[in-house]
């Protein structure tokens, strides 16, 4: 399936792009992260959380084809 991935803050500095669509054939978040780590090697030095459909998810959450976001530490306010 095709999924949309959004990058923010210092993660977008690593990917050099704010959003992209990728073809993904795996099942859960950890498999998606494998794909992304191999595409963007410097991701492994970065601290981030993953949101699916605007909710934070863990590595074993199933990818349902909605929007995924890679979120570095929040620093609002």
């Amino acid at each position, binding site marked *: 399936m095709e999924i949309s991935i959004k990058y923010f803050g210092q993660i977008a500095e690593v990917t050099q792009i704010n959003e992209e669509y990728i073809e993904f054939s795996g099942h859960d978040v950890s498999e998606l992260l494998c794909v992304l780590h191999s595409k963007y090697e410097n991701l492994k030095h970065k601290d981030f959380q993953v949101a699916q459909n*605007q909710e934070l998810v863990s590595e074993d959450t199933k990818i349902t084809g909605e929007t995924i976001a890679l979120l570095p530490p929040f620093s609002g*306010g």
Partner: protein
Amino acid sequence: MEPKKPKNVFQQGAISSEFIGNSIAKHQTKTSIGAHNIFLGQVRADVIDNKTVAAIEYTAYDDMANAKFHEIRESAFEKFDLTCMHIYHSLGTVKAGEICLFVFVSSPRRKVVFKALEFIVEAIKADVPVFGKEIFEDETHQWKVNS
């Protein structure tokens, strides 16, 4: 009671003192209010390795952030006896000394406003996907980390 529908919390650039003053003035018709409590976040000119922060540039995952602000708002109204609540956060560049966060709660009685305001500010810091880039005077930058 305030309407509780989701709002856009974000403003482009700094939040002005006039905006805050006007917001206070608008509450003077609500004569059941006895106490207001206001939190303002201001950008600090921190010095890090001899370089001074000149501004913070804010970005956010807008849709998720507005949804989180809405959840925080609902949850504060549920926990505390509030008459109204307003939250504004800057996006884009906010210079040192300027205001980037404005949280305003009002209640008939004072005890509740202190607890409510602290709850809301801490929840914003912890749960809302906003990202601050500290821009130094020499135009280099580092990513802000909340403590």
